[in-house]
């Protein structure tokens, strides 16, 4: 067991436990905090995959903005400070069964695929995390400028839409 393997197992266990707590805990504020923990563990997984820039962007975008939005939404949509009642549907067992089946099916497909056993290809570290190359690719006409601009328009539409939808007309 190399240290990297131990680290990966610890990280993935924390991630799965946090995600499980997100979807099962009754107290919604605690669920939001477990979500923050899961998002942070995903950032650690990105670091393990040598995508350092993506890890930091994950923390900035998800924990710094989306998780705070979630906490605000949870705090603004409750009448009392305490939680009441079960937080799961009446068909939670069907959902659980379906999720387990899906997980089983996906794992079977993954393990049956020949390429899944490959190990990480060795690359010199300097080539991997080249942010200036990423920046250049995002604005290169022969690169990815069209998805970049479409994503910008999408964000603008979401910004305006969220303000209009949540506008208090009183």
């Amino acid at each position, binding site marked *: 067991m190399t240290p990297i393997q131990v680290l990966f197992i610890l990280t993935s266990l924390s991630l799965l436990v946090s995600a499980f707590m997100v979807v099962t805990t009754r107290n919604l504020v605690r669920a939001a905090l477990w979500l923050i923990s899961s998002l942070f563990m995903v950032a650690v*997984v990105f670091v393990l995959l040598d995508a350092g820039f993506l890890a930091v962007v994950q923390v900035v975008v998800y924990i710094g903005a989306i998780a705070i939005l979630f906490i605000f939404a949870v705090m603004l949509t409750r009448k009392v400070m305490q939680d009441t009642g079960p*937080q799961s549907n009446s068909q939670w067992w069907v959902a659980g069964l379906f999720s387990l089946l899906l997980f089983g099916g996906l*794992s079977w497909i993954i393990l049956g695929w020949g390429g899944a056993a490959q190990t990480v290809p060795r690359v010199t570290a300097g080539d991997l995390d080249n942010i200036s190359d990423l920046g250049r690719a995002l604005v290169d006409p022969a690169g990815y400028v069209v*998805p970049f601009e479409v994503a910008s328009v999408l964000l603008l539409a*979401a910004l305006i839409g969220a303000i209009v939808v949540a506008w208090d007309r009183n």
Partner: protein
Amino acid sequence: MIPLSWYLILAAGLFCLGLYGVLARKNAVAILMGIELMLNAVNINLVAFWRYQHPLELAGQVFAIIVFAVSAAEVAVGLALVISLYRRRRSVVAENMDLLRW
């Protein structure tokens, strides 16, 4: 050392947990949290494939960045909708939004 299948199974597990959250939770905000978990699972998948198959190309990372942007936009609009619904109906339980039900 770490085969690709480990990352893929981790992503599959996270996706299924998010799916359970979407299907089995009453509160609309909790459903959105499940969607976030699913999007993160997709991102892990993308970055794992990028690293193992084409580490010298940038398409994987760009794809992951676009997924970040899309999920941020979706959460913003989703939560705005939830808050607007709460103002009207004083409830965020998804089962209570049944005006259009037959």
